[in-house]
């Protein structure tokens, strides 16, 4: 992505976000203790400021000559990186979903294993060892040493406890 494209995308996203934000702010109803400015006053002003900056950025992008587009990153490398980031995000989202069901130890062991494999680890035995040791170490640190109650998951109900 070159600088011009970046400015354009930022400008368009900025306008969309700020317009939605201002529209949402306008719907805020003031309570009995409201002052002259109101609960929506400052947020609306900030939304409008963002809209102005976004429009200015769009205009700046349009005013640039087509010949000067700035530095361009190799597309293939960039997309490969974004794809990996997306997969990592998927793994992290899965962790959030699995945590209340499978409990802390199992979820974090799966997280360590999945992230290691995603980043490039191939030796299954080492991945498994790292997952078990990592999960046990973190469990010992947080649950046993710092005495923080970590999610037990559905294990107690499954085991009839």
């Amino acid at each position: 992505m070159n600088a011009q494209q970046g400015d354009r995308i930022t400008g368009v996203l900025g306008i969309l976000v700020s317009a939605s934000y201002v529209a949402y702010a306008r719907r805020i109803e003031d309570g009995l203790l409201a002052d002259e400015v109101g609960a929506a006053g400052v947020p609306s002003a900030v939304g409008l400021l963002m809209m102005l900056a976004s429009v200015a950025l769009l205009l700046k992008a349009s005013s640039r000559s087509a010949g000067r587009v700035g530095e361009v990153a190799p597309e293939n490398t960039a997309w490969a990186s974004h794809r990996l980031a997306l997969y990592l995000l998927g793994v992290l989202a899965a962790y959030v979903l699995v945590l209340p069901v499978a409990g802390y130890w199992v979820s974090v062991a799966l997280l360590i294993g999945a992230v290691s494999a995603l980043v490039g680890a191939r030796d299954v035995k080492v991945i498994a060892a790292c997952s078990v040791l990592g999960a046990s170490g973190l469990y010992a640190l947080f649950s046993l040493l710092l005495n923080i109650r970590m999610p037990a998951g559905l294990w107690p109900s499954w085991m009839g406890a």
Partner: protein
Amino acid sequence: MDVFFNAVLSVPTLWLLVAAFAGVIWGILGGALPGISPSIAMALLLPFTVGMAPATAIVLLASVYVGAEYGGSIPAILIRTPGTNSASATVLDGYEMARQGKAGEALGISLISGLYGGLFGLAVLVLATESLARIALAFTPAAYFSLGILGLSVIAGLSGGSMLRGVIAACIGLMLAFVGSDPVSGVPRFTFESADLLGGIKPILIMVGLFAVTEMLVQIGEPAWAKAVKSEARLKLPNWAMSKRLAKPQAIGAVIGTVEGVTPGAGGTIAAFMAYSEAKRWSKNPEEFGKGSPEGVAAPEAANNVVTATALVPLLSLGIPGSNSAAILLGGFLIHGLQPGPMLFQKAPEIVWSLYGGLFFANIAMLLIGLVILSPCIWLVNRPKPYLMAIILALVMTGVYAMHQSIFEIGMVLAIGVLGYGMRLLKIPVLPLVLGLVLGSLVESNYRRSLLISSGEHSIFFTDPVSLVLLLLAAVLTLYTGWKEFSDRKAAS
């Protein structure tokens, strides 16, 4: 000298000393890992500080910052990969020295220069901060509003060449700050009827998401870093003759680090490169720079360690974080219900003195630990990236949950991480967002309070002399940066 003794004597408990040493160890190890900046090393520790005594937590976080600046120079010297951004200037001569078989000497120069820089910066911090805070104590709500506006106008200097992107980032920060109950009427705003958002989005979640999660999302696409050779590195402290030679570049680094540190947005990287350039200009042997000059290591290392203390001047005196690391430290204050700024000296002076004392011991700890930690650092740098990343991510996720035992907050951190990744992709600077986030409440509540006092008259912001001066300063700063950006663009075309 009294202030120094006060500072040192204010570290009365064993826990503060433990925090200083532990923070430095964590900082050096984190800094030694390429991709883990001081702010990320600090952000990783933030969740652990929740249950700690406030002074211990603040000293721990500040000590991480001190340690990380030295840690960053280790891979810079050994494998030509700066562990932190501010260690980039150290690569120029540090790696050349390593290639000439003088890696240990370069590491010793880095350590000693860092120690001098850190102690000098601490002296500046102690002497400058309280006087600045005392002035700010006389502020009215109108002046506080204008101070917030001045803080936001600093955005211009933090925007990496695009003020408009900086303004957009600051607006996002302000928008995030407005989530939750309205400070005056108490009505919910931008909560989407979620009870979890009624209390607002905690700054710590935003900082962990923006700094730690975003960095992991970026790092996964980066190639693995090179391996360090253990036999090449045996730390060697400079002898008397070398110390005399290094005094000048270290002094240059100290002065530049002070100026850059107290200037919000400048930071250690700019200080290090400027110090390198000035040390070369004033050196008797400028031709050696870039070919393994010890002076080329001393100047940037002194400069970036001065910044670890002087960057805290605007934070402690005015409540304005001027760097990512200062923003994370601010997060540490907020977790414990403390608001940095002039009132901190009135409400919790013991925290400030503990921080000064803790920073002093952190610098001493850096010297002691620096002498023995090289082998563990090399071991850590040489660990396979997949397992390191996996453990770091597991630590982040666990730490976030541990703060309030909330799975919702883990989801929030992930969402903020995605926002940070998008911002990185679109080259939108992160620091203005953090500024908007932390200054949002200050600006809004003092604006509305001022209007209540003046019965809705906006002239209060111009009739209050302090407010007027601050607003003028903000205008000058914004116009100057806008003009500079415009003229730079014109010159480039």
